[in-house]
């Protein structure tokens, strides 16, 4: 037996299998992973629409109704959608913003005080955006320079901002008398509600910012490995601060949109929007620990939630049943994504084995 002997196995042909020239590498890379994820989400969306069509064939038979229903879903998604774009940045950057809904309320209430309304629509919009951004900045300062855990800092801000909103509004619902503001929700342009344009605009800007700018690159780096980002010369604290300000800005925009929809603002508005936004981002593939996420995924997440709500309304399900089903759908949506993703990977893996 050769046990006792040293053996030299024949040299393998150069570069045998260790580095096959990666067939389909484009798809296997992380870029590909997020694409398959988003395809999975689109599948879930399609499924929801099919369920709608099956359960309400007469409504879905009417094409003008279908169109108006799509618009209604988008309108429903628009406010949370704008919040979610900001939230996605914060989460990718390694943080979390529990104060989002409270910022919406504070900005909305501040923008609809009698004093602010006297400055007209521009004054109201300006106020909402400035208030949102400043509250975001305060979050950022507390977290970056006060070294508070994001969860705690923004939770404290949630409580405080709602308190301040209640104080400002005297716990009253403040009616917006401004026809321009109210028109944002009521009016359409080329048959599509203005709200949807705003939503689309924020999404596009967010996408470009994340994928095409140095700001976006820094966000991914800061969330993915803050120490590495710091040692690469990125000012991590300053950047995190900007992320919270960005989230606040989005909340300010959302406040105007919500005020327009409700023709009013009050301290309880936007309740739990932060949870919706976080859930949408995570469903959309954003890592809660930071460093990974896509705007498209988050937006799909928001639209899926809006479609579920719409589906329930169309079918007139009681809320308790809605909730039970909704829990199931959320789980299913995530499982479907995982399943698709895995099977695709396996497909490529198998493919490779046979071709190598």
């Amino acid at each position, binding site marked *: *037996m*050769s*046990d*006792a*002997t*040293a*053996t*030299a*196995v024949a*040299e*393998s042909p150069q*570069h*045998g*299998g*260790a*580095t*096959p*020239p*990666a067939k389909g*590498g*484009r798809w*296997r*890379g*992380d*870029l590909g992973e997020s694409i398959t994820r988003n395809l999975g989400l689109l599948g879930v969306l399609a499924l929801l629409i099919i369920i709608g069509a099956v359960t309400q064939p007469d409504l879905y038979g009417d094409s003008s109704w279908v169109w108006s229903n799509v618009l209604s879903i988008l309108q429903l998604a628009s406010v949370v959608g704008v919040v979610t774009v900001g939230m996605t940045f914060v989460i990718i950057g390694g943080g979390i913003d529990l104060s989002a809904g409270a910022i919406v309320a504070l900005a909305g209430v501040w923008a609809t005080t009698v004093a602010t309304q006297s400055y007209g629509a521009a004054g109201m919009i300006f106020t909402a955006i400035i208030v949102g951004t400043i509250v975001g900045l305060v979050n950022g300062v507390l977290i970056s320079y006060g070294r508070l855990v994001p969860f705690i800092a923004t939770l404290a801000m949630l409580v405080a901002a709602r308190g301040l909103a209640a104080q400002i509004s005297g716990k009253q619902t403040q009616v917006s008398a401004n026809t321009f503001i109210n028109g944002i929700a009521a009016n359409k342009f080329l048959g599509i509600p203005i709200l949807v344009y705003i939503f689309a605009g924020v999404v596009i800007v967010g996408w470009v910012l994340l994928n*095409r*700018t*140095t*700001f*976006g*690159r820094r966000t*991914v*780096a800061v969330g*993915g*490995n803050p*120490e*590495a*980002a*710091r*040692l*690469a*010369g*990125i*000012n991590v604290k300053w950047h995190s601060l900007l992320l919270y300000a960005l989230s606040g800005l989005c909340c300010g925009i959302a406040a105007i949109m919500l005020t327009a929809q409700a023709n009013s603002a009050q301290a309880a508005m936007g309740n739990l929007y932060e949870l919706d936004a976080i859930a949408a981002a995570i469903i959309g593939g954003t890592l809660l620990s930071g*460093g*990974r996420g896509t705007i498209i995924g988050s937006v799909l997440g928001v639209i899926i939630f809006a479609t579920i709500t719409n589906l329930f309304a169309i079918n007139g399900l009681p809320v308790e049943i809605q909730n039970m089903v909704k829990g199931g759908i959320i789980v299913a949506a995530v499982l479907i994504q995982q399943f698709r993703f895995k099977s695709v*990977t396996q497909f*490529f*893996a198998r493919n*490779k*084995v046979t071709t*190598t």
Partner: protein
Amino acid sequence: MSEQTNTEQPDSADKQAEIVLRLTDVVKTFPGVRALDGVQLEVRAGEVHCLLGQNGAGKSTLIKILSGAHQPDSGQVEWLGEPVSFANPQAAMKAGIATIYQELDLVEDLSVAENAFLGHEPRRLGFVRRGRMERQANGILGRLGHGEIPSSRMVRSLPAAGKQIVSMARALSHDARLIIMDEPSAVLAHDEVGNLFRIIRELTAQGIAVIYISHRMDEIREIGDRVTVLKDGRTTAANLPAQTTPTKDLVSRMTGRNIEYVFPDRPAETEAETTDLLRVEGLSREGEFADISLSVRPGEIVGIAGLVGSGRSELLECIYGARRSQSGTVTMNGRALRPGSVGAAVRAGMGMAPEERKSQALLLGEPIYRNVTLATFSRYARLGFTDAGKELAEAEGIAEALELRPRDVRRAVRTLSGGNQQKVVVGRWLLGDTRLLLLDEPTRGVDVGARAELYQVIRSLAARGVGVLLVSSEVPEVLGLADRVLVMREGRVVREALAGELDEDTVLDLVMSGSLMEGAPA
């Protein structure tokens, strides 16, 4: 089996021990990579079996299969004569295989003893018997020559070398018949390595087999019995005698080349640059280092030698602005840098490859090219918009220059082997206009071939006028690569000299005791 016999077993034939482990044709694929492509390996009781191979050859993957962390796609694993397949690490441990992994696998917020006995704590009715556990841990630490590490101490507060000791303690805490060590010496200093070898000899004397992975040839010579060489996931040579096989044979089976340390030639000392690129004066940080002054000229490689824990990493980080000094100044090109600001240092033309690449340098989930351009992407940007095409092109150039494997720069860095990850970190600073490069252990865990390539890169950078400040625990590396050498001990520079004026023994003496110190400390 009818393999071609290459070399005779050096030892007397009567020392033939039982074969405890035999692998045949083991294959393991990851998505896109065939990490193992038919590996043969046999290990005898009581021997130290070394695994040699370039970065990415598949060593870590192989041992993860042995330890049950991965399952092979095909091939056979025989343990004590029986074919086995370990479904999980627990199964392997039960069977008597203990592993020290390459990446430190400790839980920071558990104590030393708890880490050592993680998963098999002495217990009664689910309660940990802490007294007994700590006594046993103390015993093992004592055996390892580190009885001074308190077994109730949190692992978080131990330095890297201390953590490595705990990893070893964990392996010893099992009643193992085979202990696998994946680059255990990478974070150990010289005397620590000696200590490690003493333990290994004790183990083998009891008939325990050891699989030992290291990129350091001298270690393999000293401790190894037989060597198996891996290349590109295949066994290219098995059971070579560790002491007698010529280095160039081993190296050539790993790489196709045949030398271990290849240092590029130093350029002849010609026009001495008058202006210093970097000047550090009186830099101090409490408890880490004190009153350090040094300078680096353009095109000069300055090496810092010293033991692990002598404060070199902290010094580099301080110069780089990643830590704040308590006193002293750092000037680049005559302009003082704002202390504690990495941004300022980078803008002034500094770059640093930190010591722990995974935690300090890499975005593991991001593609290679984004890691390569991490410090420079804003330079390819216009009005804040990035230029992905340019980035890709630059990164591909770097991948080419550093012979990165795999070459595809869109792959996630996570899937690279340790050495290739290090290339990505160094490659980052080859872009842009880096004028001073701070390298902290640039070749830790880097194989012989890649190491030579890295040396070449560093030297050619210097030739282009880039200053280099190099920290390394491998004395030959400092002496061979640097033009000028500073020796540090306990946070102070104890000697500064041209590399040619020092030899390895002198430096070792300086760092250990300082007894040979005659020239004035710098």
